[in-house]
């Protein structure tokens, strides 16, 4: 049995804004049912790629098919099968929640009972059914975000594009949104989620594309990505005069990088941790100064670009 055709297939996608190349030969396939993360710093090209997939912008080069049937991005067929959660609260805040949903549902040709049924369904799903008649401006930021999400699900899309949908959201609402998206994904919805938060990508996404300067730098599951790192563990400790001699000695056994007042020691594969602690003891440094953790996507990004995601 052949694998299902990708719901999104990009081949050599190029997008320019004047002299700036925002996307430079992006190629990737996203399978139906995937929770795909697009991870990169601000200005990396995430939103541009989302705009191309949703048909808001046109390509300058390459091909981009959406919805698994070879429909070009931006075609009516492609747009009918996707939902977009914009970065902004793209709602009419003076209108009630259900008035907003009636407008956006109408754009997909929904009307009458079918429309009312979909409104009931999405409001229930984002737990705003009891506030349906309240004006959106009376909602908290988290509630507005949830309604922003609900409006994108009215047409029961096969593909949901989430463009940094949790910007400015409190942790509780963020968790609620994460759980909601995971549940939808489990129910078969394909989700492309762009973020510059490594934690969000790690927590939500089954596969991740790391993007920077308009190029996909790495693509794979989290395990596949982390396996690209030449170390299995990262040890951190405060950088400073007291640890300068330690850093110099550790450099012989791996990589030491200093960032934000913290030294990060990434030992070569097979380097025994017992040796590390023997050295620290010799330098008279207390064990409580050191923390050890599995490598992260942040580390991979640093490895790939020499910069952090926040830069």
């Amino acid at each position, binding site marked *: 049995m052949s694998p299902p055709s990708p719901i999104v297939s990009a081949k050599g996608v190029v997008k320019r804004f004047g002299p700036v190349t925002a996307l430079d030969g992006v190629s990737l396939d996203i399978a139906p049912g995937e929770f795909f993360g697009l991870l990169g710093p601000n200005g990396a090209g995430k939103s541009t790629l989302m*705009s191309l997939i949703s*048909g808001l912008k046109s390509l300058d080069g390459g091909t981009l098919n959406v919805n698994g049937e070879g429909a070009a991005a931006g075609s009516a067929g492609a*747009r009918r099968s996707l939902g977009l959660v*914009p970065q*902004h609260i*793209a709602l*009419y805040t003076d209108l009630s929640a259900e008035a907003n949903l009636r407008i*956006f549902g109408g754009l997909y040709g929904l009307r009458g009972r079918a429309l009312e049924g979909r409104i009931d369904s999405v409001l229930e799903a984002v737990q705003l059914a009891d506030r349906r008649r309240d004006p959106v401006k009376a909602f908290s930021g988290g509630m507005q975000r949830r309604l922003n999400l609900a*409006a994108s699900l009215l047409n029961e899309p096969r593909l949901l594009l989430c463009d940094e949908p949790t910007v400015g959201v409190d942790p509780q609402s963020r968790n609620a949104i994460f759980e909601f998206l995971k549940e939808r994904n489990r129910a078969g919805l394909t989700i492309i989620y762009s973020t510059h938060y490594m934690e969000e990508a790690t927590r939500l996404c089954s596969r991740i594309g790391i993007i920077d300067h308009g190029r996909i730098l790495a693509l794979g599951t989290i395990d596949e990505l982390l396996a690209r790192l030449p170390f299995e563990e990262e040890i951190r400790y405060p950088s400073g005069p007291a640890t300068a001699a330690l850093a110099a000695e550790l450099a012989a056994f791996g990589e030491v990088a200093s960032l934000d007042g913290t030294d990060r020691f990434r030992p070569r594969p097979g380097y025994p941790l017992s040796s590390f602690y023997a050295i620290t003891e010799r330098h008279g440094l207390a064990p409580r100064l050191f923390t050890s953790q599995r490598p992260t996507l942040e580390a991979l990004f640093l490895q790939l670009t020499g910069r952090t995601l926040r830069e």
Partner: protein
Amino acid sequence: MHTILVLVRKDFALLFRDKVSISLTFLVPFVLIYLFGQVFHVNSKDPGPSGIPIAVVRQSDDPAAARLVEALQAVKPLRVVTEFVNPDKSTRPLAEGDLRPLMRADAFRFALVIPADLIRQDGIGIHLRTYSNPRNEVEAQMVNGILQRTLFSSVPELLGRSLQARARAAVGGERLDRFNDAVAASVARTFGGDAADIRARMAAGSFGLGGAGTGVGTAQPDRPAVRDFLSSLVKVEDIQVAGKDVKSPSATMLVGGWAMQFLLFALTASATALFSEKASGIFQRVLSSPATRSDILWSKFIYGAILGLVQLMVLFLAGQLLYGIEIGPQFPHLLLVCVVAASACTAFGMLIASVSPTAEAARGISTFVILVTCAVGGAWFPVSFMPEFIQKCSRLTLVYWSMEGFSQVLWSHASLAELLPTLGRLAAMTAALMALAVWRFRRGRIFE
């Protein structure tokens, strides 16, 4: 104080970042003062309006009638029209029967008929007919004043001829000629001069009242007493071609200009709401659905046109309730004009939004363009008061044609056939403005 200065500096920094605002800060006052100066002919060698068309139909062969026409042609504010232009561009003298249709088509708003019985046979004095469409009060008063002055300057001569004619009818030609000969000889003997010349002048009606050179009894038509006397001798039959039955003339004349200014500001503000929808990301959501950019633009157009139509109808209703503007009998035609005027204003607002980089710039540009088009289009002053090149420009504005439409309906009670050319022009302007707006929106980045 330091805090205030910092905040002031901030505002200037923001202003200088906005090239449109900077341009408008200097451009708006400059252009407006220029237009006001042009309208009021400030520092002009030739002050006052010029080129107000007035038709003159000469049915009298009397040489004095020809001189009256010449006198009118010499008056700078007037442009005397004496010929009718046929469709094949050939011309013939204007006939009285041409006046009404041409005046209803606004070819001119004033006409003077010098009838065959210019010199009254039934008494002393002269007889004239004027046709008027005084849809603009200021213009009508000015033209009446000019006509009165010109006529009264010619009255003494005409009055003399009237006396001669009356005397000829009463005593017979032979006896009158003898009387004239005797008087001429007596005047020549007493005051000097050539008896034959004085005799010729008397026959032409000149008794020296018109300042013919004798210095005796020179008429001064500007003096009230003289004017009253002359008025009693000049019988002018005024035929008002339009607006005669209008119950509230002043309000009816002005309402079109008010309506257009109001509508332009309201609908341009509505069109600039596109920017707030862009900023909130709503266009992203809408355009990721099956809706297209054209759908958004046409929905805005239809919304603006309906909103404008409702606002105009409310405005006219308020005019009827408060000032007695009569809209009832003309309602269907008024509705038609309102539909096309609202559509044209909406298209104008959308064009402004399409060429503006930001909402602030759109507000600045629209204020500038609306003020200029209202001034040029005749919403503030009669177009005929402006220099000729501005008069030509005014016919390119939707303000001019919308006001024309309102005036045709409310003042002239125009028929649908009479209204169609104006409606057609406004519809064409709407189509042109909308085509430009759509083209600009498609090229611009408002939807990205």
